[in-house]
């Protein structure tokens, strides 16, 4: 009997292969989007973890010297005084970051290097081994040191023994910094009693890199969830359709005495198999999506935050497994209601058409109340909440609330339209559209969310781009930047350059904690360049003049927000008090920054000499000067940066961001369009009883088809009109709430009406495309089928 039942159920798919196809494709698409985004996220995160572990930043307290390097003898003094510290030697080797550690003393989790052969350990200590990814190893010359490719090392980093690093970097007897182990002995003298000139930087909660990139990942994750939600709408539609069309079969089977429980079981198994197949296809597709996006994501992140992400994709179990789970879970969610209804539906009522569609229309009041509740929650969270979680809670409440509100609002709008209808035809059109709303509402919600996400994310990215490029113009005011290799060369360069350019602006900085937060202190030369270009977000009167007179300092927005510093407050730099006279925007910088005048800087940090110079000059003379410097000083290309080049690079980074968000936008819209298609197909076959009387009264099939398309356009436009404010609210939340929590600065929001109009056009096109097939099908319905409606009249 089970076999016969199964045959009967499966025969449906044989008769409707297109429906099976749409179900599988819908589910696959949803899974693909989800797992694609997950893959990109997982890959990027894995890279960060490796980076964060390799650098050991944040996790542990660090000891640094004001002079930049720590003599090895001081390290031994500290160890012998009971300080459990571990040495790090850092530098650049052919532009690649070389980090030397001592594996015996470094706290756990610093070195993600696995060794398998005992002999390696001997080599590592006695002759040296460089560990890095193959890509990174390919970037350096042969230094006569054994290299060992290791995928666990962060991209762009070479890990080696501290002794090997000292040798390669020409830093014999010198260390860059010391990592402080979390567990220290009970008896320990104060640091200053052992060695002077060193300072301890406390551990930070989570690494800089991770914290910085969290926002980007959260955006991607939100995108993934949204894609999934949109996908589930499709699956819901496809399964609903399959159930609807199989009602006669189910009724017949039950009338023949097939037990209900077994029937439900069979359908569940059938759905499980379909979802597993679709899930597998989806994971495969997701891999392709991810592989296509990853190079851009990697470039985006490394460009924005300086965190390197390897551009290769590994098939990580966590995301293909999650893809399959999502497919099965999503199907279960989408099918639960249908199965529940099937189990409850009275035997003879099963074949009643539209029962399923109308079911969705019930409880509109409850839905409206829920939507209102969620929207109010979103507002309250935005108003009262704090923290990243509140920001995302607000996003979720906003999106779900808006989606739930959509059918209610559309219903009211359509009712209004109906009340204004002048002709019978128009009245029928409004009423019929309203009647279809329950069946279409899920698909329209998908469209709403897709569009809102597109509006929101595009606004955020574009606002970011505008602000950032404006900021670059301020910050990169000099036409040409030159980096010296050492102090000697720096001095020679300065002497050489002074008569040749309008002004040489030395750029010097020192790392120092300000109110417990890691910060960089800058000491620029007093010059119109800064006065003209560095705009304060908030400042005391005559701020620049007073800073130049050594009366105070300016700090960046991050430091002001994190340490809660206001204009007029005092901060301590190298033991001296400074009043904060100005706060400036400093986008993209993970840590705090303080600006004092050059002379003040020199008294505070006498041991720091500038290695970088900004040159004010005629832009056209830059290439010639570059050639001159290369020939005279042997300066490498990497040591000279043309300001135009930096700007071009920064813009390039944003264009890549656009590629990623653009690709995701198109995909979500396509998925939403697919959902509309599925819903219209579902409704088309069910609506013959409603259309047949209209046809019988003289409306041609072609006209009926056109009306279908007009209806789709109308609904898409209405949805788009609602999606715009929702998208803007989303953007505002991302810029003014989430961004502040994740980055520490607020981005001004810009509006891009042309983009939104284009999006609306896309949405309408998607809707028209989705309506085209059902409309064409309707226009070609055989009159006999339409007549049959009346013969079947009960």
């Amino acid at each position, binding site marked *: 009997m089970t076999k016969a039942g199964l045959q009967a159920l499966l025969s449906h798919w044989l008769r409707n292969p297109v429906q099976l196809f749409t179900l599988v494709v819908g589910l696959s698409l949803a899974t693909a989007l989800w797992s694609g985004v997950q893959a990109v996220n997982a890959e990027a995160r894995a890279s960060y973890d490796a980076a964060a572990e390799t650098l050991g930043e944040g996790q542990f307290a660090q000891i640094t010297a004001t002079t930049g390097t720590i003599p090895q003898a001081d390290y031994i003094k500290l*160890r012998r005084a009971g300080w459990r510290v571990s040495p790090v030697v850092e530098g650049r080797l052919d532009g690649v970051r070389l980090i030397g550690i001592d594996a015996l003393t470094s706290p756990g989790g610093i070195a993600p290097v*696995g060794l398998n052969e*005992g002999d390696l350990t001997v080599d590592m200590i*006695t002759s*040296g081994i460089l560990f890095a990814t193959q890509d990174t190893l390919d970037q350096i010359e042969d230094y006569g040191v054994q290299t060992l490719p290791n995928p666990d090392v962060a991209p762009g980093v070479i890990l080696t023994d501290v002794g090997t690093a*000292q040798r390669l970097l020409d830093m014999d007897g010198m260390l860059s910094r010391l990592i402080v182990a979390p567990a220290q*002995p009970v*008896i320990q003298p104060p640091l200053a009693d052992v060695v002077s000139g060193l300072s301890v930087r406390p551990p930070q909660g989570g690494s800089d890199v991770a914290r910085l990139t969290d926002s980007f990942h959260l955006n991607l994750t939100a995108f993934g969830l949204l894609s999934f939600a949109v996908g589930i709408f499709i699956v819901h539609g496809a399964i609903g359709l399959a159930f609807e069309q199989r009602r006669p079969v189910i009724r017949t089977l039950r009338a023949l005495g097939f037990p209900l429980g077994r029937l439900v079981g069979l359908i569940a198994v059938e759905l499980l198999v379909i979802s597993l197949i679709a899930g597998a296809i989806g994971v495969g597709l997701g891999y392709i999506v991810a592989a296509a996006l990853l190079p851009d994501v990697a470039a985006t992140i490394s460009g924005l935050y300086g965190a390197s992400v390897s551009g290769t994709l590994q098939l990580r179990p966590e995301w293909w497994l999650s893809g399959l789970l999502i497919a099965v879970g999503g199907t279960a969610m989408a099918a639960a209601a249908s199965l529940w209804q099937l189990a409850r539906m009275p035997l003879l009522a099963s074949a009643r058409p539209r029962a399923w569609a109308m079911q969705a229309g019930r409880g509109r009041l409850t839905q409206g109340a829920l939507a209102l509740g969620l929207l109010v929650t979103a507002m309250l969270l935005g108003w009262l909440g704090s923290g990243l979680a509140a920001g995302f809670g607000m996003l979720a409440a906003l999106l779900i609330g808006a989606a739930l509100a959509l059918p209610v609002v559309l219903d009211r709008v359509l009712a209004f339209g109906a009340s204004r209808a002048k002709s019978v035809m128009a009245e029928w059109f409004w009423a019929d559209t309203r009647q279809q709303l329950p069946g279409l509402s899920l698909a329209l919600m998908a469209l709403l969310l897709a569009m809102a996400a597109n509006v929101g994310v595009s606004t955020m990215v574009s606002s970011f781009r505008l602000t950032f490029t404006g900021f670059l113009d301020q910050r990169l005011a000099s036409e040409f930047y030159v980096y010296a290799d050492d102090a000697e060369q720096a001095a020679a360069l300065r002497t050489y350059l002074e008569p040749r350019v309008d002004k040489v602006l030395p750029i010097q900085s020192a790392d120092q904690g300000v109110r417990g937060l890691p910060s960089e202190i800058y000491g620029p030369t007093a010059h119109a360049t800064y006065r003209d270009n560095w705009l304060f977000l908030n400042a005391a009167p005559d701020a620049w003049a007073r800073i130049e007179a050594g009366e105070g300092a300016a700090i960046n927005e991050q430091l002001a927000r994190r340490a809660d510093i206001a204009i007029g407050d005092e901060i301590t730099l190298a033991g001296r008090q400074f009043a904060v006279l100005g706060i400036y925007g400093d986008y993209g910088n993970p840590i705090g920054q303080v600006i004092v005048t050059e002379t003040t800087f020199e008294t505070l940090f006498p041991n720091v000499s500038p290695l970088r110079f900004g040159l004010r000059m005629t832009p056209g003379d830059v290439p010639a000067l570059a050639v001159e410097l290369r020939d005279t000083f042997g300066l490498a290309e990497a040591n000279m940066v043309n300001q135009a080049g930096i700007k071009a690079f920064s813009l390039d980074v944003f264009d890549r961001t656009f590629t990623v968000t653009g690709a995701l936008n198109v995909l979500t819209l396509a998925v939403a369009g697919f959902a509309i298609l599925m819903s219209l197909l579902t409704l088309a076959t069910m609506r013959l009883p409603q259309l047949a009387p209209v046809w019988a009264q003289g409306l041609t099939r072609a006209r009926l088809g056109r009306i279908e398309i007009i209806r789709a356009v109308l609904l898409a436009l209405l949805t788009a009109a609602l999606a715009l404010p929702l998208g803007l609210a989303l953007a505002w939340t991302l810029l003014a709430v989430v961004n502040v929590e994740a980055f520490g600065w607020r981005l001004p929001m810009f509006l891009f009406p042309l983009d939104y109009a284009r999006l609306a056009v896309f949405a309408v096109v998607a809707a028209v495309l989705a309506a085209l097939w059902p409309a064409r099908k309707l226009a070609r319905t055989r009159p006999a089928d339409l007549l049959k409606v009346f013969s079947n009249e009960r």
Partner: protein
Amino acid sequence: MNARILLLLLWPFAVSAQGFAGLGTGTDGFSTPQQPAIFDFPADHGPHDDYRIEWWYLTANLTAEDGTPYGLQWTLFRSALTPDGGEGWSSPQLWMGHAAVTTPDAHFVTERLARGGIGQAGVTADPFEAWIDDWQLVGDDFDTLRMTASGPDFAYDMGLRAQGPLVFHGDAGYSVKSAQGQASYYYSQPFYDIEGTLTLPDGDVVVSGQAWLDREWSSQPLSDNQTGWDWFSLSFEDAKLMGFQLRQTDGTAYTSATWIDADGTTTPYTDGAFSAQPLSVSSVAGREIPTLWRVLLPDRDLDVIVQAINDQAWMDTSIPYWEGPVTVTGTHAGVGYLEMTGYE
């Protein structure tokens, strides 16, 4: 992969299929102990870089003023990756320090690791100084020493004064470890009086007692079929006993012992004379470890029960083992130290 694994791999003792902690590995290029053993003091109190492994191993049975027994350990291991090698960071010499304090109901343990060649750890013979980080065992000569160590939850500062001569194990310091002839140079100073202060979480404790320092170096002290050892250093009213058994894969053991009279006169015993039988085991760090033993040396009419003061004296270090103070009852009464390795 984390640094701890890297560290374990770096430490040549730690990972080896052959014997406990890699002590059963080949000697390629390293010197091996030769007979007759000829010592040159004070130079031989210092390191022997051409041998693979070496240790300065001090244990002490202590009593507080209120009568509470304590155990104390201070150990410095030297391990060479290669018999000869570079200077500074490229030095093949690695150092490992273990310090512990055992009370009847607690066991404090900590570990230090260091590279040779940079001054973070080492040993000089004259004047004597053995150190790793802030831990040290230092004195003008080997008879009068100051010993310090500290960890996250304990520290100690002790003074030692030798009350007797050095004693040499096996054949005048040439100590055979297996029937195949593996051997080490092995001498001890078992006659230290010790006193000082333990800094424990509950406060400082003034203690005094007896300490025993072992010096041993070799390049391959275990044979391939030996999996671990049980080592006893026991102090009775008028004599001392050092005895160990090396457990072998076939279930038998290779034993060796030295009877030390009060004046330092030694009687070495070769394989079979000394025996130790586990009487009951304790569950320690997820393993079954014998903490109650019957120890026999029929030649001296010795038949004693050796019981751990604290069963849980587990050394949770890179190379984990059991080491703690014991009490001795039976034909001879006293205190001592027990070390057990190779229990999985």
